[in-house]
C-alpha cells in the first residue's frame, strides 16, 4: 500500500467499526452486509477491468458457484463452513482456469460475449441441477469458526467488512507491486509488454482467477448469511450490477469499487417506491456515467482534492 492508501484505509476501518455503534438498526446493518458482499465481487472485477483491461460479464457465474458449492458442502456433506468456503473458492478458481485459458486469447467483444455465455450456462445449470431447481433451497448453516457461530446481522457486518479489508489490503499490495505494474503496462500496450518480456497471458489468467475467487468468496458468504439461495440471485443482471458498481465508483481506483458497491447497493433501497422503474434507473445510471463521468466517483474526487491542495499550497 502507498501512503495515501494507508490514510484512507484507516478512515475506512474507523467507519466500519463506527457504523454499527452509531446505528444498530437491523435494516441498515442488512444493507451494509449486502454492500460488503457486493464490494468483494466489485474489487475483483475492478482489478480485472481497470488494471488488466479485460472485461467480464460472467461474475455472477463465479458468485453462484461460490454460493452453491459452499452451501451444498456444508449442508449436505456436513463440512465446517470455513472449509466449505475455501473449497468453494478452489472450485471457482479451477473453473476460472478452464475458462480463462481459451477465453483470454479473445479480445474485447469476444471476451465479453464469452464470459456472458459462461454466466448464463452456470445460471442454467443451477436451475436444472441445483438443489431445489429454480426455487432453490434453504437451511444452509450459518458461518462458524472455532465453535462460535455468527447469526446476528451485526456479526456478519463485521465479518464481511473485515474480509473486505483483508481483500483490499491484498489487492492494493498487488497493484502497487511488480505484478500490478505489469498489468497496467499490458493495459497500455500489449506490444511493448511482450517486448519487455512480461508474461502477458499468464498474468491475465492469474487476475481472472483472482476475480473469480473474490466473487466466489462473496457468494459463499451470501449463502451462509441468508441461509436460503435460489438461482435468480445469480443471473446476468447481477453481473451487470457489479459492472455498474465498478464503473460508477471509478474503474481505475480500487476504492472506487467499494464506493460503487455501496452506492449501487443503497440505491434500490432509496428507490423502493419506484419499483417498476428500477431497471430503467439502473440503465440510465450506467449510460450517463459512461457518457459523462467516465472516470467514476473516486478518481473525480481525488482530482478535486488534489486541486484544493494545490490551491492551498499556492496561497502559502
Amino acid at each position, binding site marked *: 500500500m502507498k501512503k495515501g492508501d494507508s490514510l484512507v484505509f484507516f478512515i475506512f476501518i474507523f467507519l466500519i467499526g463506527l457504523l454499527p455503534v452509531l446505528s444498530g438498526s437491523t435494516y441498515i446493518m442488512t444493507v451494509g452486509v449486502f454492500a460488503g458482499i457486493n464490494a468483494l465481487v466489485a474489487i475483483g472485477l475492478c482489478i480485472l*477491468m481497470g488494471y488488466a*483491461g479485460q*472485461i467480464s*460479464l460472467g461474475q455472477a457465474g463465479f458468485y453462484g458457484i461460490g454460493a452453491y458449492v459452499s452451501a451444498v458442502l456444508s449442508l449436505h456433506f456436513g463440512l465446517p463452513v470455513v472449509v466449505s468456503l475455501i473449497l468453494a473458492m478452489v472450485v471457482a478458481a479451477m473453473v476460472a482456469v478452464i475458462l480463462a485459458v*481459451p*477465453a483470454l*486469447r*479473445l*479480445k*474485447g*467483444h*469476444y471476451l*465479453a*460475449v*464469452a464470459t*456472458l*455465455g*459462461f454466466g*448464463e*450456462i452456470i445460471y*442454467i*445449470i443451477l*436451475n*436444472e441441477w441445483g438443489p431445489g431447481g429454480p426455487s432453490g433451497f434453504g437451511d444452509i448453516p450459518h458461518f462458524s469458526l472455532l465453535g462460535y457461530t455468527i447469526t446476528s446481522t451485526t456479526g456478519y457486518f463485521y465479518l464481511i467488512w473485515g474480509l473486505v479489508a483483508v481483500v483490499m489490503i491484498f489487492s492494493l499490495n498487488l497493484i502497487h507491486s511488480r505484478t500490478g505494474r505489469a498489468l497496467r503496462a499490458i493495459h497500455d500496450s500489449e506490444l511493448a509488454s511482450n517486448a519487455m518480456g512480461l508474461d502477458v497471458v499468464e498474468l491475465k489468467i492469474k487476475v481472472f482467477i483472482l476475480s473469480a475467487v473474490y466473487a466466489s468468496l462473496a457468494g459463499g458468504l451470501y449463502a451462509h448469511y441468508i441461509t436460503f439461495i435460489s438461482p435468480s440471485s445469480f443471473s*446476468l443482471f447481477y453481473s*451487470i450490477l457489479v*459492472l455498474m458498481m465498478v*464503473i460508477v465508483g471509478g474503474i481505475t481506483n480500487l476504492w472506487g469499487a467499494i464506493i460503487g458497491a455501496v452506492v449501487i447497493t443503497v440505491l434500490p433501497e432509496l428507490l423502493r417506491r419506484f419499483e*417498476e*422503474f*428500477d*431497471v*430503467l*434507473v*439502473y*440503465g*440510465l445510471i*450506467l*449510460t450517463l456515467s*459512461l*457518457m459523462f463521468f*467516465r472516470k467514476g466517483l473516486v478518481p473525480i474526487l481525488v482530482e478535486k482534492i488534489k486541486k484544493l491542495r494545490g490551491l492551498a499550497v499556492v496561497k502559502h
Partner: protein
Amino acid sequence: MLTVFLQFLFSGLTVGSVYALVGIGFNIIYNATSIINLAQGEFVVIGGLLMWFFTESLKLPFLLSAVLTILSAGLIGLLMERLTIKPLKNADLLLMIMITIAVSIVLRGILMFNFGKDPYVYPPFTEGEPLSIYGAIIQQQTLWVIGITGLCIILLFLFFNKTIVGKAMLACAVNPTAAKLVGINVSRMVMLSFILSAVVGAIGGMAITPISLMEYDKGPMLAVKGFCAAIMGGLGSNRGAVIGGFIIGILESMTAGYIHSGLKDAVALVILLLILFFKPAGIFVSKTMLQLRKF
C-alpha cells in the same frame, strides 16, 4: 418417428430464422463500425411488443401497425446511435461494449415499465389451416417467419451489392479513412447501420411473437444466440449468419424435443463457447477472408 423429427426441424427453422436476423443485425453494425451492439436482442423484443401495442391495444389495422412498428424501431436505432455511440466516437473498445450494454438495459427498463413482466402474444398474420407434411404440422405463421426472413436477406443482399448507399456502407467497413476521402459521409453511414439493424431485428420480433410470445427480458438470450449465429460463419458474413442461425435453431429444438427442454438455451451457449475458444474466426470461413479481418 419421422413426424416428430420433422416437427422439431420446422420449429428449429422458425426460431433459427430469428437468430439469423439478429445475427445479420450484428453484422450490419459490425461491418460499418467494428462495434458489436449488445442491445441487438432488444430490437427484436421492441418489434414484438410494439406490434402488440399497435394491433391489440390501439386496434390499428395490421399493415399500418407493421409500418409503425418498423418506423419506431428505426427511430430507436437512430436515437441510440446519435445519443450514445456518436458522442463517444473513438472511445476504446471496452467503453463501446459497455455503452451498448447500458443502452440495452435502458431499453429493457423502458419496455418493462410500459409492458410489465408478462409475455405478450397476438394472432398470426393469416388465419388458416396449418399445413401437414408427413404428419408434421406447420403453422401458417411459420411460413411467414421463414418467408419474411428470406425476403429480408434478399433485400439486404440487393441493398449492399446493387445500391450506391449499400456499397458506400461496405466501404466504410473496409476502410473508413479512405471512404471519407472519396466523399462518403461515414457518420451518416454509421447512423444508417443502426437504423437498418434495428429494423431487421424488429421485423424478426414481429414475425415470431405469434409463435413464441414476447416478453421484456428476452433480449439478452436472443442477442447471445444471434451473436453465436453471426460468428459461426465469421462476423460480417450474412450468408454465414443465416446458416449459423438455422443450425442453432435446429440443434436447440432437437435438444428441447429429444433431451430436455430446460437445456435448450444451454446448447447455443455451449456452441458459442466452443466456437469462441477454438475457431473464433468462424467455422466456414476462408483463409484469405481471415487475413482481411481486423481481429
